[in-house]
């Protein structure tokens, strides 16, 4: 019942926002729906939710993890949006509000569905609800970006659908309800192996496109560069986490069927390739949002790598989803503050941020440290766990490559960080010009920064237990 409410609430609100003209009501609707949604998700931690009839909707460990991440970052983004629309009105206020709410509904569906076709439907909805938000400036570059995004994600989603068809074929003839995760896992070795492998390939390619694994990442820099920062945060932190959950699901099925040996090398290969591509493009990147896009390719590579390595890597991977989601949203929101102030995303125009926007500058500093993988933030520890998994599994070569790439990326991120945060402001800048930093724009990233720190210093026990349970379903274990 609660699961249905979780799903229906943002969906109905999206409809309501569509039919409301008053801007002020949109501003109130977003955070209040997000807050109720978050409260319901918290209640699912305390009292486990009953599966909905038929077992199509249920919350398992991995699902609850992604649902919590989605709900929390959406709440932060919704509060931020209140301050954001006061500074810069996105075209079509009601499109903006209802697309964001539809995105929350779609992400909820992705997290709670145990039926793979339903999960596919959620991913399609989530990806499409973002498209009008990317195309928000209505100019040449944003048009080019949205075209690339739509083309790539439509192809991705089509390939994933074919993967779902293949999976249904693999299951035909064995007992159990079609395409339900528990029944697929129970069928195990009874699944038809050639079709199962084909299904894995297509789902990996399809959802991998959505995640932005190299070489299917080419839409990312343009899209993140053009999207409004709060939309970019949701795409980099939450949408990719949903696509990752899709890959987690099919990997669970592969492991249950004894086909882990087919899946793992592929996941590792995609992971390493993404890391290499990210390192190559991150060095010398001068646009903040494009830097974040390549950093996102890097972190998606780490997720695939951890999943492929298994063991404590699976634990590191699910932990890394949380860390990446929180740190990415934090960064996009603070970068948004800088861009609101300077109207430019290049690092040269944002120099001396610490002097002009002390709070946002400090938060950007924290966020870049966190995403670059510096202790004591969470990303550092999940990266360490994944590298540890490579060492444990006897892949010393992989561990060395990953460490080298992480070092290169950290140096590149640090370079842009020093440039933006600490360099003196451009001389042309009138000395006294300071933007008052609104509480709406600063509090959400501040809260996210605290979470990023907590995930690094001391993970609360319930979260740790949940991560361990999610890792076990992936054939791994807690370190």
């Amino acid at each position, binding site marked *: 019942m609660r699961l249905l409410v979780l799903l229906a609430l943002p969906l109905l609100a999206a409809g309501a926002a569509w039919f409301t003209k008053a801007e002020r009501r949109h501003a109130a609707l977003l955070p209040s729906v997000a807050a109720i949604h978050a409260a319901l998700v918290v209640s699912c931690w305390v009292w486990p939710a009953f599966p909905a009839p038929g077992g199509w909707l249920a919350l398992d460990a991995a699902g609850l993890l992604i649902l919590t991440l989605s709900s929390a970052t959406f709440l932060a983004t919704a509060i931020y949006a209140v301050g954001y629309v006061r500074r810069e009105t996105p075209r079509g206020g009601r499109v903006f509000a209802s697309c964001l709410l539809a995105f929350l509904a779609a992400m909820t569906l992705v997290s709670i569905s145990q039926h793979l*076709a339903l999960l*596919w*439907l959620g991913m*399609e909805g989530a990806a*499409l609800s973002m*498209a009008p938000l990317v*195309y928000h400036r*209505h*100019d*040449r*570059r944003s*048009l*080019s*970006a*949205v*075209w690339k995004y*739509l*083309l790539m994600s*439509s*192809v991705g*989603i*089509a390939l994933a*659908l*074919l993967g*779902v*068809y293949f999976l*249904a*074929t693999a*299951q*035909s*003839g064995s007992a159990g309800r*079609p*395409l339900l995760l528990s029944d697929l896992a129970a069928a195990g070795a009874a699944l*038809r192996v*050639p*079709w199962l492998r*084909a299904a894995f390939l297509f789902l990996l390619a399809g959802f991998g496109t959505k995640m932005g694994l190299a070489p299917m990442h080419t839409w990312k*820099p*343009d899209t993140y*560069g053009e999207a409004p920062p709060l939309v970019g945060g949701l795409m980099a932190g939450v949408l990719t986490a949903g696509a990752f959950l899709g890959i987690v699901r099919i990997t669970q099925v592969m492991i249950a069927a004894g086909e882990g040996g087919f899946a793992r090398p592929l996941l590792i290969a995609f992971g390493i390739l993404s890391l290499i591509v990210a390192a190559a*493009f991150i060095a010398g990147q001068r646009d903040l949002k*494009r830097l974040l896009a390549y950093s996102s390719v890097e972190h998606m590579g780490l997720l695939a790598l951890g999943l492929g390595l298994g063991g404590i890597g699976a634990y590191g991977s699910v932990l890394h989803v949380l860390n990446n989601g929180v740190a990415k949203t934090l960064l996009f929101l603070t970068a948004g503050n800088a861009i609101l102030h300077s109207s430019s995303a290049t690092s040269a125009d944002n120099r001396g941020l610490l002097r002009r926007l002390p709070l946002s500058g400090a938060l950007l500093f924290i966020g870049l440290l966190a995403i670059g993988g510096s202790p004591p933030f969470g990303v550092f520890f999940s990266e360490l766990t994944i590298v540890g998994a490579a060492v444990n599994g006897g892949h010393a070569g992989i561990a060395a490559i990953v460490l080298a790439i992480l070092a290169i990326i950290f140096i590149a991120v640090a370079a842009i960080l020093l440039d933006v945060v600490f360099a003196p402001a451009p001389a042309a800048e009138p000395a006294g010009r300071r933007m008052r930093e609104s509480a709406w724009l600063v509090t959400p990233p501040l809260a996210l920064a605290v979470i990023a720190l907590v995930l690094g210093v001391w993970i609360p026990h319930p979260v740790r237990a949940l991560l361990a349970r999610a890792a076990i379903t992936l054939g791994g274990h807690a370190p």
Partner: protein
Amino acid sequence: MPHAARFFLLLIVLTDFVVLGTTRLGTIIRAIAAQGILLGALSLVIAPEWTPHAVAIAIGAVAVKGVALPWLLAWAMREAAVRREVEPLVGYIASLLLGAAAVAIGFAVSRRLPLPGGGSPLLVPVALASLMIGMLVLTSRRKAVTQVAGYLILENGIYLFGLTQTATVSFLLELGVLLDVLVGVFVMGIVVFHIQREFDTLDATRFGEADD
């Protein structure tokens, strides 16, 4: 498999090759429309019995794939006053050869993937070939209209494969049609319209390649 189904499948491959070999956007759109109607007819021929559900799926496929989407493409083409594809990234002869290779690969791969319960020997290879040909058109042509046409061929390939699934999971095919409705009509149509209004041309590779 009845002869009619085999005949329809061959015609579908033929329409794929028409798209690969022509420069005229009008011909491409007519081929896409023909393919949509063929798909609807095929799903009726393959269905073991004409349940209301099977008939509704067939009508839906014809309405969306055979009428609505081609009409949308034709409208976009007229509005933007583009008639021909220009300098594709892969030439026409090369495209046709690659298309033939795609059919061969489709047959080779489908031998490794036997459909449980026997059934239609041509369906899987044609579906895979359409998938690859659609991808080829999507990546090698410059005009937005042609790229959308490529995407539709790709989708039709997936729909063809979905026809083998009606026995086990009946609603999977609806998801495929939904994909069309959402992606094709709702979003791509709007974007094509905007591209046309902003630049008076539907050349999707030329505008705003943001630099890395």
